[in-house]
């Protein structure tokens, strides 16, 4: 049995509805189990690329996620396989309490009540937030919100985690927790970030994106070590 690639993207270009370009000619293959960082300056197209991974944004290109072409008939299956974690947990946690937020995905997938409960408990344990089920999301700290946001997709038992700036606005301790948490998850992870510390600690491979194009796609050490490259794309200070 061949192991399917987690992500296969051929010639992906995307323009925003207002005509502004988003992505240009992206070719990318991610194998199952890889931990890949997508780095790049603000506005490089990192989030736009992530939104293609579960078919929220679509354009004419050949895109396969976990072996499934991104098409209407596969969309439910793909959204189950891809756990998308948005930058602002306030957007991800829209229910009245933590339980309902974590249960939202499994309920939509039509699982039985008992199974939903089991999945929620498991996901909350994974992120170290047991006992938070009845709390209301608004009253959590930002670090707690980020972890619950991860639980909301872990409850779907995804094959691929796509995270957008997971460490933004976290204090160093919160960041440490989150890095450890993400290290402990064993599925394929794609992390869009310009937090180089996170990238260095977590990702084997780094893709540098700027102005919608892939500029570099090498091992993390090589990309981060290339000071001239990093500087040219706004990821290191000029001097």
């Amino acid at each position: 049995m061949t192991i399917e690639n987690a992500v296969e993207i051929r010639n992906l270009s995307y323009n925003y509805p207002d005509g502004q370009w988003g992505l240009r000619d992206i070719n990318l293959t991610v194998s199952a189990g890889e931990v890949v960082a997508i780095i790049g300056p603000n506005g490089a197209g990192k989030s736009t690329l992530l939104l293609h991974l579960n078919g929220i944004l679509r354009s004419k290109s050949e895109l396969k996620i976990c072996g499934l072409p991104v098409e209407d008939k596969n969309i439910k299956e793909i959204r189950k396989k891809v756990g998308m974690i948005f930058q602002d947990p306030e957007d991800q946690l829209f229910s009245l309490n933590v339980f309902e937020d974590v249960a939202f995905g499994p309920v939509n997938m039509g699982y039985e009540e008992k199974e939903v409960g089991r999945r929620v408990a498991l996901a909350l344990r994974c992120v170290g937030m047991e006992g938070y089920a009845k709390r209301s999301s608004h009253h959590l700290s930002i670090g707690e919100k980020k972890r619950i946001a991860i639980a909301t997709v872990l409850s779907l038992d995804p094959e691929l985690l796509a995270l957008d700036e997971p460490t933004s606005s976290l204090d160093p301790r919160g960041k440490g927790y989150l890095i450890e948490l993400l290290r402990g998850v064993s599925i394929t992870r794609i992390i869009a970030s310009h937090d180089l510390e996170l990238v260095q600690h977590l990702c084997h491979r780094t893709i540098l994106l700027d102005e919608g194009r892939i500029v570099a796609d090498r091992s993390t050490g090589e990309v981060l070590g290339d000071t001239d490259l990093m500087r040219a794309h706004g990821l290191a200070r000029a001097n």
Partner: protein
Amino acid sequence: MKHSFIDEYSGLDSFVHRLDPRTKLLACLAFIVAVVLTPAGNSKIFGFYFVLIVVLILLSRLPLIYVLKRSLVIFPFVLMVAIFIPFFKQGQVAGSYNIGAWQISVTYDGLFILANLIIKSWLSILSLILLSSSTKLADLLEGLKRLGVPHIFVMIISFMYRYIFVLADQVMRMKQAHDSRYFGGNYWHEFKILGNMIGTLFLRSYERGERVYLAMLARGYNGEVPAKKRLHYRPVDAYFGIAIFMLLVSPPIIWW
């Protein structure tokens, strides 16, 4: 940020808190209908309903002062709608004033209608406060859903409750940012800034709405959410429902 919630006291435990939300919703609706249908000036019936609601509030162990304070919010709305009635209603004149070229007169009939309006809306708001303070919002929404309120409305209320505090935080931060750079200016200019703030807030909420929708899509949302939590209808709900119904119906029969 710590905000006081609309259902601040919903975590208490009492007879009223333990009732099924559907029972409470229907009882509250019945109470309001009864109050509204009571003919004007029937002070005995209004008195009876007032005692009924106060007893229920006491049973629910809500702080009475809190309920009374909350109930004051209704007055600006009632007054805004009804303040002109005493001036326009025809009838025996209670007093008249000359302001410039105009003669303005207040009639007893008008004042009578205004008083009735205030009493009716106050009794109604008391019952609504009791409902919302004795039921967790999540349960209330589940109850609404089970009573056949369209899913989309329930969802809108749920989002409103979830994001109203996020919005309040945003307003507060905007105000702080404004105050930090504000060194006095004319009044008119302030209004313009306020307008801009409201516009910005609208745009941000709109964009947040889109992002929340994306987050919902990403977790398999397709316009419907299957019902999940089970509510438990117990005998005590039936007893309470029947008792309330009888209490609401009997005073008009006795005193009408």
